[in-house]
């Protein structure tokens, strides 16, 4: 891959071209796949530059309570990988789509435990990349190979504990963007931006790859702060799911999601303005 990272992917392009980028996440099937379609389109309208769609897995060990609950709603609604892909087949957005799911879901797609059928189907459905919260670089070889074969990005997470040799290895394999985990712990909306975020971005500043920060981002002001601190994008999930979960009728959430995306995108932009005071926003280096 190291030679392939030189070819800019849809995802990398989406981040660089729309800098500062907004990446949004919702869980597919929460509360139904039909609703998800409308929500994704709303997020797209609201200004998302990249959209992550969660394929629910019964043991979401990296998620906090908000996304756990969304996953349970999606599973209770009977969401399956097949239904998920059909949804993706159907969706029309400007923003490229990624799938976020756990490794076992990828392995079990198809008749044998094997990653290839999933990747093939993901490519066919038009997905641009995959994020797997329980797949560290050390175990990612088979999936990365399959993604390469089908031109999909395999996005790696960089945690506050990722340092030294491991950080180098991971950064040398980044495809799409580096998912910078804002803090230790699980996903979930937080009231502030953690110090760890600043530390991580500082640690990563020497690497010339797009960096997007997730885990806990819930407001426009967070987005501004994060972008200002040197990120290329912000990733927001739980804050959006809160909107879905709190709407009396599923369709009520559509406008709220669009508005929230817009607020976050504005916030991110504010970050660039402030940041612009200090240094010029990085330009895509390779066209």
């Amino acid at each position, binding site marked *: 891959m190291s030679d392939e990272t030189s070819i800019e992917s849809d995802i990398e392009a989406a981040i660089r071209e729309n800098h500062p980028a907004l990446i949004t996440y919702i869980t597919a099937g929460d509360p139904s796949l039909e609703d998800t379609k409308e929500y994704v389109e709303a997020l797209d309208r609201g200004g998302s530059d990249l959209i992550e769609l969660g394929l629910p897995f019964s043991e979401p060990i990296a998620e906090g309570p908000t996304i756990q609950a969304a996953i349970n709603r999606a599973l209770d609604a009977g969401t399956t990988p097949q239904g998920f892909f059909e949804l993706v087949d159907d969706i029309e957005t400007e923003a490229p789509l990624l799938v976020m799911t756990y490794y076992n879901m990828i*392995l079990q797609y198809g008749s044998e*435990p094997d990653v290839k059928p999933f990747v093939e189907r993901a490519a066919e459905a038009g997905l641009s990349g995959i994020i797997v919260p*329980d797949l*560290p670089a050390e*175990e990612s070889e088979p999936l990365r190979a399959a993604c390469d074969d089908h031109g999909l990005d395999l996005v790696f997470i960089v945690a506050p*504990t990722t340092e030294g040799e491991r950080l180098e290895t991971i950064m040398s394999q980044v495809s799409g963007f580096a998912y910078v*985990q804002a803090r230790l*712990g699980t996903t979930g909306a937080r009231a502030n931006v953690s110090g760890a975020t600043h530390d991580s971005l500082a640690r990563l500043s020497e690497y010339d790859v797009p960096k997007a920060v997730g885990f806990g981002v819930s407001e426009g002001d967070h987005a501004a702060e994060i972008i200002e601190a040197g990120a290329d994008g912000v990733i927001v999930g739980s804050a959006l799911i809160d909107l879905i979960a709190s709407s009396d009728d599923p369709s009520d959430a559509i406008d709220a999601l669009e508005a929230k995306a817009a607020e976050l995108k504005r916030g991110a932009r504010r970050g660039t303005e402030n940041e612009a005071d200090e240094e010029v926003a990085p330009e895509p280096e390779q066209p």
Partner: protein
Amino acid sequence: MSTERERDGKSSRTGTFGDYGGQYVPEALMPAVQELEDAYERYVLENEDGFMDEFRERMREFGGRPTPLQRADRLSERYDREIYLKREDLLHGGAHKLNNALGQVLLAKYMGKERIIAETGAGQHGTATAMAAAHLDMPCEIYMGRTDVNRQRPNVYRMRMNGAEVNPVEAGSGTLKEAINETMRDWATTVERTHYVIGSVVGPHPFPKMVRDFQSVIGTEARKQIQEQASRLPDSVVACAGGGSNTMGTFHAFVPDEESAEPRSADDSSGQSPREHVDLYAVEAGGSSLEIDEDEGLAPNSATLSTGTDGVLHGAMTKLLQSTEGQIMESHSVSAGLDYAGVGPELSHLVETGRVTPASVDDEVALNGFHRLSRLEGIIPALESSHALGFLEEAHEDLGDLVVVNVSGRGDKDLETVLEETEKRDLAAAPDVEVFDQ
């Protein structure tokens, strides 16, 4: 605990057993897992700073090791062959769990960790961990599903008495699987100063090996004891399997005892012929049925080795009870400690290669096993261990002349469950339970 290191130490896929094992954990945990790997190699495998000496001494003085290998007179008569019981029920805390809990808490101390967390299902691993943490003066928090908290009150009390916090997990069905998920989440948050004491030979490398090594004292003792007491190796060794820690702990020393194996190295002090073959039986919970209800996501059993398929759960590739789509099933067993949809990767591998024979017995056979040992031998076994005893009843004719069964724990914790479950059934081996309500 010998040559494994060279074999698996630094390959790109560390900690695998054939196709099984690995380190499928969130990136945030990888540094901790690697730090643990390093500590495991230094302290456990190489006895740095005398770690293993201290561990063994504490297991003797605090834990009560060695546990006896007892000839079961009345079972031997019943089955017309020699039956020996390895008495892990006599270990401090009432189950083999302390071997592992004390090892890991001590290791955490050597690593400079300040806090212990652990998951528990029935509460056996939680109580063992709480005891070990109290003994070694480490703050300790235990995650336990809400359902389990409610049905295993005495174990909750024991943990609290030992000074541990008990955190009920409200998610899902509120049992072991959810408790593990939640402990992993805590670990992902506090990983720098916290050690997660996993309760069985599951989880990411190095846990399966490390837990096996801490538990392997069971089989090491048993192998020596049976040679002293019966002057030869057993024909069969039987242990129950949930995650598989008592199983691997019992089997590990016997795995090389294969007819086809290379002769044991010259420094094998046993002086035994290397060609004696020992059959190994891992007995899982057959629950009420081996059939799976995919629609409901329910397996009314925990017979992972017999009926599971390969997949990734809680950090490792192993055999699992899962839907064809990859969702993990709710497992079921009358015995809470076997009620888990996964199993240790090494056991999956040993089953795959034919070295270990998987078996299962249903709830009823296990309950009869419980009553039989209680009445015939004066030992009230854990419901988990009762599966091994139920299997003995069913399969003794195929087990040869000399059989070792691991009694992984005592059954005091199971009395209420056994009474309830016995009342529902007409069990051959049970006393008349109705008159209990005198």
